[in-house]
């Protein structure tokens, strides 16, 4: 099957989307998929972007005869994987060491698919912030409260307001408890 966009290359990526309730099938070659990706139309289709990116990158280094595994380049000293192998595994890496081995390529992929380059979330051995979940719930209840007020559903609004108050009191109490614990530990 030929690519819908360039009508030249063999289509290797097949995407089904729903437009106005109608099913639309799109068939693309790797190159055109990359173009579409740049335009932002593929980004969030549940579509394996990493696969395309790695495909493209290993394509750059591969010799003109792609019959055998012929990418000279880098080999991970830990697991022995090459870019070609990563591509064949849909953009999955062989081991944690691959993150170092293929660092430039991976940071390219991360730059395209992630929001930032630095982890700011929880870490092993360190507890998640105790009030994290409560904070989330309070945010959500506040949105529900605004919404209820907007709709003039005052009974519901009162319910949300009370729930917010209870949660805020609870998290303030546990904060105080943690503070005294810290104090007495000193």
């Amino acid at each position: 099957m030929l690519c819908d966009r360039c009508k030249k290359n063999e289509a290797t990526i097949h995407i089904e989307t729903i437009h106005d309730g109608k099913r639309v099938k799109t068939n693309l070659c790797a190159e055109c998929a990359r173009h579409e990706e740049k335009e932002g139309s593929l980004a969030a289709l549940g579509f394996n972007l990493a696969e395309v990116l790695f495909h493209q990158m290993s394509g750059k280094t591969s010799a003109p005869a792609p019959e055998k595994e012929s990418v000279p380049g880098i080999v991970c000293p830990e697991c022995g994987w090459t870019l070609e192998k990563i591509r064949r595994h849909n953009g999955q890496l062989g081991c944690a060491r691959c993150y170092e081995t293929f660092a430039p390529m991976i940071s390219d992929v991360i730059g395209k698919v992630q929001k930032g380059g630095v982890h700011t979330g929880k870490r092993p051995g360190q507890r998640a912030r105790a009030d994290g979940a409560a904070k989330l719930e309070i945010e959500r209840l506040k949105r529900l409260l605004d919404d209820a007020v907007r709709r003039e559903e005052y009974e519901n609004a009162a319910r949300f307001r009370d729930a917010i108050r209870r949660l805020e009191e609870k998290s303030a109490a546990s904060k105080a408890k943690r503070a005294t614990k810290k104090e007495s530990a000193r």
Partner: protein
Amino acid sequence: MTPETADVLLGNEVSFLAGADAGNGCDIAISSRIRLARNLAEMPFPGSASDEMREKISDAVADVVDPRLFGGKVHLFEMASLSPVDRDVLMERRLASADFIRRTGGAKLLVRNDERISLMVNEEDHIRLQAIRPGFQLPALWEEISRIDDRLGRKLPFAFDEKLGYLTSCPTNVGTGMRASVMLHLPALTLSGRIGATVQGIQKLNLAVRGIYGEGSDNRGNFYQISNQHTLGESEEEILGRFSAVIDQLINFEREARAALLQKDRFGMLDFVGRSFGALRYAYKMPGGEALNHLSGVRVGVDMHLFENLDIRCVNELWIATQNGHLQKNAGRELSAAERDVERARICREKLRQGRN
């Protein structure tokens, strides 16, 4: 722990449907799920590990997962020793991914008795920890899964990088390794022709839209799974906060679309619901995709109080009982596609004849 068959779960209420009539925006948000991807340090990822290595990894994980860590009795399932029907049952109960049930060497699944906590060993990553519940309740899920992850992290050395966070087999999951997803039932947005624009809007916000069973599955029955795309660069709470705001908005859109449809085209809406009910109540051959579509119609009718004698529990039970694995489990043997359609129709007729269960 001795490996079991899927039979041990069949008496349970399905985790993501249980108590679905208890509020939490359940009429539109069917269920919420959070998955955390973790890998053991110094071990090759499952894709490059030998069968022997994967067995070693799954033993190491299974050894530390006990009732205390999971907060309840734990069941163990080994993909290699399960029948295809049993594996389908695990997928339909949303405990295992479609990719996982096809794996063999060292692919083990640990499930807490209530099915709300589960862990796939040797899927794409060594560990995929999952928490799932009915309705829209991400904060409670995050609190629970994070606590279990803390306990796991004290017993197992995770692959972690100061800058990149939790290292995962695919760089699309690196960082928090967290995917949150909410399954939404959006029939009114579909009927009113606004679903295309809605899906595009969601995608612009960097969220993924998928069918019921995740990657590669379609949106049968007007069910859509929305999940976060980014896993690195924001904390878990920031990701969940942003994500929840979008879901709240989508729930509102659907609610408004339902009210508008009922007001503008009352008979159109009643017809949609009535036809679905009619087909399920009287048909003698019912393919799986068609069943899901009609169950969507009946579900929206129940949500909007258009039926006097049918409750959401009945719809939920049919939803799971009509899927291939459960259908064959219930029949006690493997069925051909044609036999399944006949059996599926029979179950629907009987259940809807009874109405309330």
